[in-house]
């Protein structure tokens, strides 16, 4: 953390103190904070006007189905990002593992056993990541990169790398296709997870510690908090959310395979950053991430509807991450002044 502040200090010290720069940069600060509301509104209006088939009921349901799993993963990962530990790349392995376990174990035994096994796996993931980052102070990107490979390797080895299917009339299939009014069950899960995590982050002691840790790790530790436990907690929340996301994803198609969550790490990160949660830690909220999820999902939905190729979609998401982080960094610099 100290290094970023240092580079920033250098940059600030070198920047000329003229009013024009200040004016434009306070605009950047405003964009970094409130821009997502404007951008989401513009995106929705523009896609309703210009994209054929966007406003149809079928497409909206489809949008919910696609947004729900990635959204749940992103909501959980917000905790890790707020602690200032960049992100959890291993959600790719975690969501896939949860999905495969849900279907394979419930085929072989029953649903309850599947839930228990998936829960244990999620706890193990969260603990390994959390202990490595929280107590060993290791870099979160490298740690979660390695746990991704270990997890995916184990998953491929155990599942044989093949797709698993659930029975057509099983409870998982019913859950995946049922609706509450116009909303599929997965969207309901998304809302419930949002409510729970919002409560945890903004109203509980743990949530306060997570935010405090993100603002200033040292002062949080000196105030007598066991900071290692806070980091482990943040990773456990992410693991739980990734597990639920994997369940929802598997239930939607009633199948699961080890590479089904590919790209979830980046898309979740894009949603979190676009929502206005800072990668520098300390600043952000769960509802903001939900808004970011809405934005990213609509964007990729529009890209799919407009028959843009997969490559261009990846370019779009990648540029979005870089753009959002740039705005965040510039906005912060103004705040420091």
């Amino acid at each position, binding site marked *: 953390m100290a290094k970023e502040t240092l580079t920033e200090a250098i940059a600030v010290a070198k920047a000329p103190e003229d009013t024009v720069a200040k004016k434009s940069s306070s605009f950047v600060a405003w964009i970094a904070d409130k821009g997502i509301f404007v951008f989401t509104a513009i995106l929705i209006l523009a896609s309703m006007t210009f994209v054929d088939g966007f406003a149809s009921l079928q497409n909206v349901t489809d949008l919910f189905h696609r947004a729900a799993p990635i959204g749940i993963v992103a909501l959980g990962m917000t905790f890790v990002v707020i602690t200032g530990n*960049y992100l959890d790349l291993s959600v790719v392995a975690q969501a896939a593992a949860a999905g495969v376990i849900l279907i394979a174990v419930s085929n072989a035994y029953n649903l309850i056993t599947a839930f228990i096994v998936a829960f244990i796996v999620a706890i193990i993931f969260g603990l390994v990541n959390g202990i490595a980052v929280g107590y060993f102070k290791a870099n979160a990107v490298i740690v979660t990169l390695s746990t991704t490979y270990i997890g995916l390797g184990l998953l491929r080895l155990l599942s044989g790398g093949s797709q698993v299917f659930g029975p057509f009339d099983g409870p998982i299939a019913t859950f995946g296709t049922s609706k509450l009014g116009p909303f599929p069950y997965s969207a309901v899960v998304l809302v419930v997870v949002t409510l729970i995590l919002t409560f945890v982050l903004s109203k509980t002691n743990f949530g306060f510690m997570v935010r405090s840790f993100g603002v200033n790790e040292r002062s949080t530790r000196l105030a007598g908090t066991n900071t290692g436990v806070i980091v482990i907690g943040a990773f456990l929340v992410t693991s739980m959310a990734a597990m639920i996301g994997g369940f929802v994803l598997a239930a939607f198609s009633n199948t699961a395979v080890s590479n089904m969550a590919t790209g979830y790490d980046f898309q979740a990160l894009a949603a979190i950053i676009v929502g206005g949660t800072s990668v520098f830690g300390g600043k952000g909220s769960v509802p903001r991430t939900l808004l970011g999820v809405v934005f990213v999902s609509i964007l990729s939905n529009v890209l799919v509807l407009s028959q843009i190729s997969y490559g261009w979609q990846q370019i779009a998401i990648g540029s979005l991450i870089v753009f959002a982080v740039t705005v965040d960094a510039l906005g912060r610099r103004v705040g420091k002044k």
Partner: protein
Amino acid sequence: MTNQTVIKVGADATGFWGKLKVALARRTEGRGVALFIVIASFVTVSQPLVFTAYQVTLGRIALIGLVALGLTAVILMGELDLSVASTLAVSGVIMTTVANQTNIAIGILAALAASVVISLVNAYFVAIVGLNSFIATLGMLFALRGLALVLSDEQPVKLENTDFGIAFGQPLVGPLTPRILIFFAVFIAIQVFVSRVKAGREFLAVGGNRQAAYDAGIPVKRRIFTGFIISGGVAALAGVVNSLERTAADPTAGSTVLLASFAAAIIGGNYLKGGKGSIVGTLIGAASLGMLQVALTISGVQVPVQEIFIGGVLLLAVLTDPSSLRAVWGSISTTFQGIKNSLAKQARD
């Protein structure tokens, strides 16, 4: 930290053993050497074929190590370039596409030029905008992977001049293929640059204490640009070599290389926070991983198991980093101190 250690040990640096101690305390390759010895002895006992077929092993080491060497230049400055994996894919696609229309030399030049552009963009975000390099290059990793897919139309691009590609895979000097020769050439070039050239030596200063480096008049931003150009350029070179050897460019290449090259650099003792590390360490790391991979392949171990092994080695390397061990030791001793204090308090009451 570095200076303190050197001064402390240097105080009793008399005689042969004292000097040896000083020399060892200044090196960072300890873990790399330990792992190398463990893997080498394990391989000697169980799979001596790894040494007999040393051409294969060297080829694998070169594959992992090439990207890792470039990456080390950036890591020494405390930055990270995650986009190397996609740079590798993009440059391979550009090289084959251009080579199919003109000739291979122009194709290689085009790929290297593209990598310079990519590196400039990376370095701009890190040095000028002041973004965290992990996040900036993560976005670039994703965007460039998309670019590789767009450029190649989501299909592997075949190299039409297959004769050259096949010739490229053949031994050139003695038993050494061009890939291995390029690897050693890059190793020597970067090693000389980092340890003998002023600009390269300043990389370590930038990584150790950026403010101090800035105050001492080192052009910090220019060094960051140089570092990213080295890592991007070497990754592009690796992409070109891969595509030539396979006579086709795969737009999805590079994801396994990313893990292995990070593992090689970190095992080699390069501090992710910058300021400490060496190119030799990366070479040792790459050699250990290369031997491990070849041994696993020869033993007929499945690919997922190999991924688990490499991932496990990387995790172990990160956790046994001296700064990690210090952190965990600190929190353990604090916990015990707390327990001791509360016990003492209870006894008082």
